């Protein structure tokens, strides 16, 4: 029998977590006099020094506007900005660099597609298909669109383990479906969707697929060509990059057929008061001066993750997830919400006689940061008949001893609340 203690001593091979922890300055912080145990990574991840330094270096040494100046700094800034686009392209194995569009984050990526592709392709009586495990950001933009167009938002159900019911998803795809917008990994449940199969089913009906990759990119190797999805979008800040920057990838033919999202500088090739012709991809979708420092920081984050190896990161996090699941289940009265066979990095739970908000406050006093509430996924809470959950989510720098601190904190919850 493998005991918890034995497991403690076995680190997944080739991943030195103590060494990577040293890359993240914030991890040496103390909270309420206790060492910080940061387990709220699904909300946002901490930043390695490589990212912080890249942003600092940009502002201290290269700051200038991109794509316009003839001077040295502008050229250098443009080079670095475009180098980050190349890094993002390689990170998700996109076929073409011009398919990488920088956006503020996943939310903006989805809104962009809803307001351009959606507004021109979805009409009265048409349908947009989502799943029962979407984040609000992959529900509301489609609701707005469907209301405006008298179209219908259809929702493929999930089962008691928090897995998509694939047969129902297949049944909901039809001639009226103009787009399926689905999450890769659920932020509230941790479920990894069978994306390849879902995309095959959608394509068999001629339906393009947008993937919300916010929770997937930090934990899994994403290959948009292997998936054959049509749009893929993710946020920088959940994958160790800065907030306010993210990526939308789309297939060239789709992106070219779509009208621009916002008008302004950089997205045009010529402007007169009578007529404007739009710039080529990706600039058509990047109106205004972009978050240059953010893009450079994102590039540094993706390079950092690639350097460590996403497969090694995934194995390390999987080990933490299994360990945390095992230890949580050993506590009487704890129930895990989201028990899919395929999960990434997230353990959501409820406790008898302890509301998640009280759990959160008590854990915070122990230095342990978790998320409590509905996780911007109110329909999921309703599906499971609970108002909220407590959620611990793991990143590459978390350790088994931090899981132990979480467990000790939960024991404290029982002690305080009685």
């Amino acid at each position, binding site marked *: 029998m493998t005991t918890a203690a034995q497991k403690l001593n076995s680190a997944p091979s080739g991943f030195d977590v103590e060494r990577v922890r040293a890359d993240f300055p914030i991890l040496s912080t103390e909270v309420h006099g206790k060492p910080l145990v940061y387990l709220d990574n699904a909300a946002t991840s901490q930043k390695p020094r490589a990212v912080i330094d890249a942003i600092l270096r940009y502002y201290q040494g290269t700051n200038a506007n991109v794509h316009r100046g003839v001077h040295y700094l502008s050229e250098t800034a443009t080079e670095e900005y475009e180098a980050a686009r190349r890094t993002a392209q390689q990170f998700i194995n996109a076929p073409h660099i011009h398919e990488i569009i920088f956006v503020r984050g996943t939310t903006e990526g989805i809104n962009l597609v809803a307001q351009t592709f959606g507004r021109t392709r979805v009409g009265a009586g048409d349908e947009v298909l989502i799943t029962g495990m979407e984040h609000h950001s992959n529900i509301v933009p489609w609701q707005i669109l469907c209301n405006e167009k008298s179209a219908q938002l259809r929702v493929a159900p999930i089962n008691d383990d928090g897995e998509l019911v694939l047969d129902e998803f297949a049944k909901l795809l039809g001639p009226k479906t103009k787009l399926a917008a689905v999450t890769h990994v659920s932020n509230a449940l941790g479920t990894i969707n069978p994306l390849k199969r879902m995309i095959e089913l959608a394509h068999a009906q001629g339906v393009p697929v947008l993937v919300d990759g916010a929770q997937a990119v930090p934990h899994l190797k994403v290959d948009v060509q292997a998936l054959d999805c049509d749009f893929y979008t993710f946020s920088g800040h959940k994958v160790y990059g800065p907030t306010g920057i993210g990526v939308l990838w789309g297939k060239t033919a789709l992106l070219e057929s779509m009208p621009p999202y916002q008008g302004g500088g950089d997205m045009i090739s010529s402007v007169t008061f009578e007529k404007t012709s739009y710039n080529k991809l990706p600039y058509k979708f990047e109106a205004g001066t972009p978050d240059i420092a953010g893009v450079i920081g994102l590039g540094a984050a993706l390079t950092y993750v690639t350097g460590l190896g996403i497969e090694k990161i995934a194995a390390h996090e999987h080990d933490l997830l299994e360990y945390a699941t095992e230890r949580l289940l050993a506590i009487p009265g704890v129930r895990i919400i989201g028990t899919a066979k395929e999960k990434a990095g997230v353990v959501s739970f409820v406790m008898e006689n302890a*509301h*998640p*908000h009280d759990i959160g*406050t008590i854990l915070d006093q122990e230095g342990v940061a978790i998320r409590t509430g509905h996780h911007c996924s109110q329909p999921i809470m309703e599906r499971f008949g609970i108002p909220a959950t407590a959620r611990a989510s793991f990143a590459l720098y978390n350790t088994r001893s931090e899981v132990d601190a979480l467990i000790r904190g939960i024991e404290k919850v029982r002690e305080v*609340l009685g």
Partner: protein
Amino acid sequence: MSDLRDLYQDVILEHSKAPRNFKVLAEAGHKAEGFNPLCGDRFTIYVTLEGEAIKDVSFQGAGCAISKASASMMTQSVKGKTLAEAEKIFERFHDMVTGHKPSSEEETELGKLAVFSGVSEFPVRVKCATLAWHTLQAAIEGKQESITTE
């Protein structure tokens, strides 16, 4: 360091586990729903008025220990009071949980509600402690829409 025991006092825990006046008042002339979107706390407050007095008050719903105990102790504290007296107690309560240390006279007015003074050390929990009170106000004022703390 703020002490958890200041927040989770025995009286609070006891009320959260066995809330008083935790029922629907079928004949209530006033009711309102309060919702804290941050954590999903949701309570309905029922009030029966007799002239300017709160004849009966009850609540139903689900929430964290702080919000539930606060609702429970609020019903006990305002039952039989005039609307003006209830308003005054809420004012004192609100001042206390947002960091104003009550004078001994104010403490007398607050009575048992003084156990919530520890909330002021936990600013994110102020909304939990005041949700029921805001909802009571809405019920009395006859607002129809759901009240939120946001």
